[in-house]
């Protein structure tokens, strides 16, 4: 998807944080999330002066079962003055067509500001069919990109396909994206430096007329039908307080469309959650050029902190299927007749369990990280029954263990502890 090719600035780092995996859209709760990322980034690349910038990046996301709204922007400082950097607003809509097939639509308006280049603005509209199973999925999609105030391309059409799978704490993704567009060849300052002097240049005054007035005919010698194909793989790994994202890819296309610097890319990012709402963020890598925006490839490194806040008060979160929110439910021996219960579930305020081990009195779990909850339970060998509830909601059978009817219009989980 075209939205995955955001530039490698501190702003992009923050935006990537907001789309850390397919599982994010699979949850079934309404939620409002606010994040603020503060950090420094170093950006460099062919035709770009090495640049240190401080970035302050607030963002906001609202999500429910059928749509997501996301808005974010960045204030950049080079040490002397603050300026508006990247900005984006995005809406995603999801419609379940059958038990495991979903139609997804996305509209995205974004602005990217890169030092030395005119701000690039772009509209994206994409749609895709997504086959979702419990541990993986695949999608096919297409869309249209409309660059604004960029003198290098026409509208672009995008086709993409991909697969993803989850293995324990790991989410693996692979995708293929093909972008078709007409390049308006030019050798002015906004073009890819690797193409300077190679492509027949349009007369500057003629190109300006096309760009500004949109009606002047352009000589065919100024046009080039371009196609670039990106193959990208990525992974997300989460365990306790650590999140790691890796991605890399290769771009295929004619050398006039794909510069040498954009052939391969890769990046890494790590988040360490210091508290449930504060994380240290480090990232770096190389990003390919963005032909529809006329922006070149570049390298970056960034370091910062991120604050996360979920302002929807407890009790107004609409949890339709609490069990779907639970990422894991594990019980392990922690001593004689003692079990350590760990539950991974994010964005909730309270998790409780009860069962025969507590004479069916609710016992709250202790929060041990951003989404890790823990409780030591005195539980000897034998068969035990257990229920859990989230944020004071309905008692449910924990996922991942057998369950039976409880005679009170619900289910109860069954554990068998070995002697």
């Amino acid at each position: 998807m075209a939205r995955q090719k955001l530039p490698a600035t501190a702003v992009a780092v923050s935006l990537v944080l907001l789309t850390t995996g397919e599982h994010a859209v699979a949850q079934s709760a309404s939620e409002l999330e606010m994040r603020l990322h503060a950090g420094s980034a170093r950006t460099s690349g062919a035709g770009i002066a090495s640049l240190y910038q401080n970035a302050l990046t607030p963002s906001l996301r609202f999500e429910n079962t059928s749509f997501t709204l996301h808005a974010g922007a960045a204030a950049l400082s080079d040490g002397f003055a603050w300026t508006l950097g990247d900005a984006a607003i995005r809406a995603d809509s999801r419609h379940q067509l059958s038990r495991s097939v979903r139609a997804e639509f996305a509209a995205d308006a974004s602005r990217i500001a890169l030092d030395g280049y005119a701000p690039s603005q772009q509209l994206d509209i994409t749609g895709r069919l997504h086959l979702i199973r419990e541990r993986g999925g695949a999608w096919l999609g297409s869309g249209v990109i409309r660059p604004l105030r960029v003198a290098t391309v026409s509208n672009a059409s995008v086709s993409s396909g991909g697969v993803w799978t989850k293995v324990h704490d790991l989410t693996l993704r692979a995708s293929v994206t093909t972008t078709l567009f007409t390049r308006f060849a030019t050798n002015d300052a906004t073009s890819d430096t690797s193409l300077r002097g190679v492509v027949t240049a349009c007369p500057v005054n003629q190109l300006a007329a096309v760009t500004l007035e949109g009606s002047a005919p352009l000589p065919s010698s100024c046009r080039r039908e371009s196609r670039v194909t990106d193959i990208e793989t990525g992974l997300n790994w989460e365990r306790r307080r650590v999140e790691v994202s890796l991605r890399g890819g290769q771009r295929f296309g004619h050398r006039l469309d794909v510069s040498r610097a954009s052939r391969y890319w890769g990046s890494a990012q790590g988040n360490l959650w210091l508290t449930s709402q504060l994380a240290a963020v480090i990232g770096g890598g190389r990003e390919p050029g963005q032909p529809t925006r006329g922006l070149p490839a570049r390298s970056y490194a960034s370091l910062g902190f991120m604050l996360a806040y979920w302002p929807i008060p407890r009790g107004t979160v609409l949890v339709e299927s609490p069990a779907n929110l639970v990422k894991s439910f594990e019980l392990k021996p922690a001593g004689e007749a003692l079990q350590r219960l760990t539950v991974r579930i994010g964005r909730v305020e309270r998790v409780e369990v009860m069962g025969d081990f507590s004479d069916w009195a609710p016992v709250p779990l202790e929060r041990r990280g951003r989404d890790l909850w823990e409780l030591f339970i005195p539980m000897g060998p034998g068969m035990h029954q257990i229920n859990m509830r989230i944020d004071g909601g309905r008692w449910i059978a924990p996922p991942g263990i057998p369950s039976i009817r409880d005679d009170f219009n619900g289910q109860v989980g069954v554990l068998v502890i070995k002697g």
Partner: protein
Amino acid sequence: MKHMLIRVTALVALTTSLSAQDRGADPLSRLDPSTRYSVELLLDSARHLGLPYGPIESKALEGISKRASGRDIVVAARRVFRALRDARAALGPASSSDELTAAAGALRVGITTTQLSSLAARRDGKALTVPLVVLADLVTRGVARDTASSTIFQLWQSGAADDDFLGLWRSVERDIVSGTDPGVALLNRARQIPAKGPLTAVPPTSGVRPPEDAKT
């Protein structure tokens, strides 16, 4: 770090223990007098018959915490009592409390005493708890009773261990969530478990007892 963990462990365990004690030695005191009387009659009957009475008391406490009415609590406790009684008749007097509790759960989803007896006859000293828990869960998830019962029986007599049954359950659950028919999922996954012993008897598929829920 290790010391901190031990302290946390001890603290939480202690807190949990104290919390349980705070509720008093008579947790049934939270029941209204009429309901309590009915439940205590069931407990006395269980003791008199030599049945484990813990599951009956546990069911009553569960009902209290789930804010069930007194009538519903008595009905649920009575079901547990009957199921325990029938389970012991099917499994035999040497059965453990856990086995009886698990068998009672299976009976309440419609597994027959005949089917339980067939499983018990092939016990060979192994505990039936896990197979019965898995059997009850599979029926609850939509696997036909006869299909579930015969499949579990085949695995049981072929020497499947507790881990095999739990692994089977996880696989079937995943398949069901992914949209596979529960019965098909069970049969497909069961075929992947290698036999560890001889297959001999024909599994029981006939039932003579309707599920508890069908009667209420």
